[in-house]
């Protein structure tokens, strides 16, 4: 009367349908990868710029960067995404789904990257700055040769952490009808009514990306320790 629950679940879990939808999942897997990669590169660029402005000498630009960072950190990514996708067109600015998605991811992660970089730079012992100043290095030379190389070692792990967050955030892009990994699960669910199979398959692909990024973190950390020694 009381069926063995796990055996029961395995009997109804349909692997054949997953194989049938594998091409869809693979193309959506690729979409997630390139959307996340574009977002990552963009966020590194924006993050570096925002961080530079924030700790730079111009009060006005520092204020602007601060405003940008605070507005991103205080609002949910979903709200930002919907604003870009549904809000901007009503104000006259319309972009493709992919463009909107990449911009939303870039601006969102950019703010967090800026903060990570700032924390890293400010964690450099002040003695380093003093030594650099007393050696006669200019601000840019200081940054380029003393501060930033050390800062990167400190910030690389949290930045890769933010990269993983960005990949998971890209799941929200399914809500602006981008054909990425989460949308693949939604499609399989809406066509075959098998949410377990659909979303578990999506999850497995996200796991692959996660482990790839984790391996990258490990490799970069080992390289950095070697360099610092």
């Amino acid at each position, binding site marked *: *009367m*009381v069926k063995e629950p796990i055996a029961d679940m395995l009997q109804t879990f349909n692997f054949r349908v997953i194989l049938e939808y594998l091409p869809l999942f693979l193309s959506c897997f690729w979409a997630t990868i390139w959307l996340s990669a574009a977002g990552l590169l963009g966020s590194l660029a924006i993050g570096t710029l925002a961080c530079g402005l924030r700790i730079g000498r111009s009060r006005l630009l520092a204020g602007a960067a601060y405003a940008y960072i605070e507005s991103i950190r205080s609002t949910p990514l979903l709200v930002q995404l919907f604003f870009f996708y*549904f809000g901007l*067109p*009503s104000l006259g600015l*319309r972009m493709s*789904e992919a463009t909107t998605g990449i911009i939303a991811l870039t601006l969102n992660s950019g703010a967090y990257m800026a903060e990570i970089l700032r924390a890293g730079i400010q964690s450099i012992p002040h003695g380093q700055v003093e030594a650099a100043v007393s050696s006669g290095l200019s601000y840019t030379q200081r940054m380029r040769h003393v501060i930033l190389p050390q800062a990167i070692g400190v910030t690389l792990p949290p930045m890769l952490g933010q990269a993983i967050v960005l990949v998971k955030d890209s799941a929200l892009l*399914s*809500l602006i*009808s981008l054909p990425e990994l989460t*949308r693949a699960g*939604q*499609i399989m*669910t*809406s*066509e075959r*009514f098998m*949410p377990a199979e659909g979303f578990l398959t999506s999850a497995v692909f996200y796991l692959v990306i996660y482990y790839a990024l984790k391996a990258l973190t490990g490799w970069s950390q080992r390289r950095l320790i070697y360099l610092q020694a």
Partner: protein
Amino acid sequence: MARKWFSLVMAVLMVAGVAITASAGTLEEIAQRGELRVACQTQGPPFSFIDKNGKRAGSSIELCEMLAKDMGVKVTFLDFDWDGLIPALLSKKADLLAADMTPTVKRAMRIGFTRPFMYTGSVVFVKADSPIKTVADAKKAGLKVAVLLGATGEIEAKKAFPQAELKSYKGGGPLLLDAVMQGQADFGVNDASAVIGGLANYPPNSMRVLPDLLSKEPLAFAARWDSMDLLELVNLFFHNAGLDGRLEQNLNYWVNTLDWKKDH
């Protein structure tokens, strides 16, 4: 010692739980609970939507309230995106699926449908100033068509406009109207009843509905196949409501006219 008692009590409860659920049909469960759980759309005017007073309203909502009153139980509405309705029903979150869903054979492989309560068809809608005047115009290559994820309109659009770029929105009909309005898509495909109901929220003459029907579609409620008793009960309800005029009144108010716009 306490642990032994605990395991014994849990074992007894589990056996009792199985024994109780194994014998009850869905109607008995609903009667015991005193509550009919209905899966409806989050945003699907005029069948299920949040009206201007912030309350859930619509044709399907009103029909389910009538049904629950006749059954002698209270009704609880759980709202979902369109593509979440069937999974909600299958996972037993709801007893009944009340929406403008078309009984297709594919869907019927997983859930049981009642007999239809009305008929509609898929239509094409465009912005008022769109160059698309007929369905033939819409068949041009490279146009973008907005459809609802998991709806028959998605399938109809793929069939009728194979050269169009399909944009599948997750959520409800209003998202398609928005997409066409904002220019994210050149035209949209959805049920006539959903399109006309949704257009009520836009300024008049902002969008056009092309006169040709792409398909003829019955609309029905649904329940799991293990709830044949509930399915037959809803059939009985529709039959009776058809005879005493309540169904016609409901459809005339919500679907066949825009009378509901005055109050909601």
